[in-house]
């Protein structure tokens, strides 16, 4: 596990351009998810924001996490969401149709204020250590060494979900 580079500030042009364009894509797509009328279009914008987040991981040199983000989010979870949307009876309904508009606005405002306060009040440190160069090896060793119990519990949860899915759709 090597550490590459000592300076981690985003100083060069490439990093700045990459970060800001990816940030615009991600946040813009996320805004469009809640702004478009068609539910399927909302899901497609969600997929775009997933890919934007993967790009942001790459700017942080976390290559394994970025590829896994694409594999799981853009590859599998988006398929899950699309199937779920299409199998519900009223998939063609308007995204904006809800009778909980006022409570939704209140809740969104509260969450926004909380997050804004955290961002402004926290004392953010800059990382002093550079990025790893072999992240896959590091993650693998950590998963099987320090974090083996959460790893195994996650596997058991996934197994329970799969068995539950099969039981639900079995025709008896």
């Amino acid at each position, binding site marked *: 596990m090597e550490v590459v580079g000592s300076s981690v500030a985003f100083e060069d042009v490439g990093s700045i351009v990459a970060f800001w364009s990816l940030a615009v894509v991600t946040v813009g797509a996320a805004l469009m998810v809640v702004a478009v009328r068609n539910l399927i279009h909302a899901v497609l914008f969600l997929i775009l924001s997933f890919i934007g987040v993967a790009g942001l991981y790459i700017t942080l040199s976390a290559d394994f996490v970025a*590829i896994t983000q694409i*594999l799981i989010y853009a*590859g*599998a979870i988006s398929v899950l969401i699309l199937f779920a949307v*299409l199998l519900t009876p009223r998939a063609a309904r308007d995204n904006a149709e809800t009778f909980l508009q006022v409570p939704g606005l209140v809740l969104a405002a509260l969450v926004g204020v909380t997050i804004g306060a955290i961002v402004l009040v926290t004392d953010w440190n800059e990382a002093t250590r550079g990025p790893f160069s072999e992240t896959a090896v590091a993650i693998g060793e950590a998963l099987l060494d320090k974090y083996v119990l959460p790893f195994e519990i996650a596997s058991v949860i996934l197994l329970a979900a799969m068995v539950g899915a099969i039981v639900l759709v079995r025709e008896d």
Partner: protein
Amino acid sequence: MIFLAEWWDVRDLGNAVGALLEWLGDHGPDWLPYIVSAVVGSITIVVFLLTSLLVFAWVERRLIGRIQARMGPNRVGPWGAFQSVADAIKFVTKEAITSANADRWVFWLAPILVVVPALVVFAVIPFNEGMILADLNVGVLFLVAVGSVTAIPIFMAGWSSNNKFSLMGAMREVAMLISYEIPLVLALLGVVIFTNTMRMNGIVGWQDEHNTWLVFLQPLAVLIYFICGAVEINRTPTDIAEAESEIVAGYHTEYSGIKFGMFWLAEYFAGFAIAAIIATLYLGGWTLWGLEEWVPGWMIFLVKLYGLFWFFIWMRGTLPRLRIDQLMAFAWKVLLPLGLINIFFAGLEVLLWQENDLPAEAVLPGFAIANLVLAVVLIAAWAQLLGRGRPQYRPTRARLVKELGAVIYGEEA
């Protein structure tokens, strides 16, 4: 490996590009080499793929014609060689009809997006030591990730056609794709267990260093990967989306003209990608036991790639088509358990090797033979276990009778 790192060394075109980038880096701003290298790499990949497509569209039709005891196209140009050009002109000039109620943006975007994964996969495939666009540390995982994104444009195509049959076809297609991703990953894991790295050039280097090809060490994995790859690119025996006799007509029914041409293009590019991946990971990539010092590595690689693509063409001309539920049963009940058992044994072998620090020359032939025997035994045993040996599945002949009048229903043939 004696690679003279001079720009005129045609055996590794990466040298020429590297020299150009160095010159640019000295004489220009810092970010210019990155952009130029990305542009040069992308254009090369696209040009290579399009040329291969033009050639192989013709080759496939001639080869399938020969398999079917007929000639294949032979009118347009000598031996019909310009048939692909004629096909391309046909695709471009046909009217691209968009249904009135189709979702215009998604309908228009789906054929474009479906080509993207097939193109992007080539970024991590090494044509030679220096001829790789992005030598990622997680190259193998990148292949899997990009392959899994293919499901989304297919779904977009099916949904935006505003045709319930296209939607059903797209959902079936997506179910098939995600079912076959899991054995695909397991097959690739077998390679990574042996080579201890996910870098594509690293895997080729491991095969060169140990003087062996991973196909000998992992026969079951290469078989599983080949089958999963064929399914991912919708080739017969699994081209359910394009089958005429499947009435649910498939996700690209409503597409015509160049939009349909893009789907066809994506299928071929993905076919080249799968062949390239098998050539790199299992067949040693651009190395050929030392021959790469005289013959350019990329030529060796291309020969392997096209040779593997020939297998796809052969399968298309020969095999019938499976039903969708039989196909998914095959993935979940056969390929997934076999893949799991394969990586278990691969891990066991690597553990024995590393723990006891045995020399490679002694151990690897033993592993090769053991794995081959394991593959044959596993496939036979699994088929027996699933009941394939039962009389219901055995082929029979008709009974010959001379008298008339009786009924022999229900008896064993």
